[in-house]
């Protein structure tokens, strides 16, 4: 009785495949090290000059921070390269949704299971933060914000984003760039969440929602008490502080718009510049762990944006239970 041939090797691959992987990886490492500026400068200081052909070296990165306008649509609408990327994201999301829901089965296939998992997790998040009654109302907007931000971030890692060159007006620009790297996309999402919170705040508390920002009630009540004969310094003092706190709350509401914008914009732009620089330093190898980091950061930033919007709108809808008078 012969035993079956044992598979030696590690990581689940058989031995020959492991050898091939190691060889390819070390070749890429050596070629990348020599083609980047580290290797070039190291060897030129020894006097050895290694010339790499043009298609191996990577040019130095020059990121254009304001997104450059590429062409005009219908003659008067300027289209930048980040707008093309956001159209691409929208098309991908719509196509995936149509494909998944076209023939929905009770026992789902794999793609449907994946999307049910994502949306189920988001709905559980809404229920855990906003409570069962409100989760259904907020879920559509929160899921939209989350999926839009995450797909913008992840699709910008596909090869082609930032490397296809489009020459116009004497300059050469990238044809597509990740949509979150333009200041306008996070700004639009932040304004959207600001009006979302205001809409639900006014809808549930009425005009009284503004009273938490212009809180003149306690102050004037204490001052009125002076004319009635009750001198209440503590009341006047705390009333004045309440006005000040109300003004600070109003200011902080507007500052959250800016904070949302720059958190998302900063993370995404810094990630893109990091990838460009690591691709420049050691071309084929050094960028790999940073791609993983970019995936993680894209998911976390989407979760933070949607989660913080959810927290603010939940705080706006729950009635204030701290009537301390």
């Amino acid at each position, binding site marked *: 009785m012969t035993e079956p041939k044992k598979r030696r090797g590690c990581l689940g691959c058989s031995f020959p495949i492991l050898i091939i992987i190691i060889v390819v990886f070390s070749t890429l490492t050596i070629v990348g090290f020599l083609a980047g500026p580290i290797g070039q400068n190291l060897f030129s200081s020894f006097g050895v000059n290694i010339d790499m052909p043009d298609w191996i070296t990577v040019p130095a990165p020059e*990121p254009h*921070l304001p997104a450059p306008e590429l062409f005009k649509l219908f003659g008067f609408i300027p289209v930048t390269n980040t707008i093309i990327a956001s159209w691409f994201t929208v098309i991908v999301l719509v196509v995936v949704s149509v494909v998944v829901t076209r023939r929905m089965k009770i026992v789902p296939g794999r793609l449907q299971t994946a999307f049910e998992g994502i949306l189920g997790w988001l709905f559980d998040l809404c229920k855990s933060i906003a409570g069962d009654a409100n989760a259904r109302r907020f879920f559509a907007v929160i899921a939209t914000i989350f999926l839009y931000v995450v797909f913008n971030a992840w699709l910008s890692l596909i090869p082609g984003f930032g490397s296809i060159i489009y020459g116009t007006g004497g300059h050469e620009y990238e044809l597509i760039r990740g949509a979150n790297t333009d200041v306008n996309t996070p700004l639009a999402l932040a304004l959207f969440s600001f009006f979302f919170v205001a809409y639900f705040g006014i809808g549930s508390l009425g005009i009284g929602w503004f009273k938490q920002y212009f809180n003149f009630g306690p102050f004037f009540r204490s001052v009125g008490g002076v004319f009635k004969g009750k001198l209440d310094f503590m009341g006047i003092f705390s009333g004045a502080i309440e006005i000040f706190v109300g003004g600070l709350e109003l200011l902080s509401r507007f500052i959250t718009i800016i*904070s949302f914008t*720059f*958190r998302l*914009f*900063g*993370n995404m*732009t*810094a990630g893109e*510049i990091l990838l460009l620089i690591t691709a420049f330093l050691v071309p084929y190898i050094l960028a790999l762990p940073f791609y993983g980091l970019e995936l993680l950061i894209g998911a*976390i*930033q989407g*979760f*933070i944006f949607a*989660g913080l919007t959810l927290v603010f709108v939940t705080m706006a809808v729950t009635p204030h239970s701290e009537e301390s008078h």
Partner: protein
Amino acid sequence: MEAEAVRLLAAGLAIGLGAIGPGIGIGILGYGAMQGLARNPEARGPIQTNMMIAIALTEAIGIYALIVAIILALL
């Protein structure tokens, strides 16, 4: 000193000094999360979720400093 030199110096200072605060802050958050996890290993899910939220908010402050440095150095 020329404006160009001061601009580059300011970019380095912006991100260098600006990363001290968030670095310490994230360290303190990690410390608290480790302590909570050590006292109550069953609460791992909520501890992890809340730690992630707090870390992302703290990191945003460091990103503001990075934005200032990028604008100074490249624009």
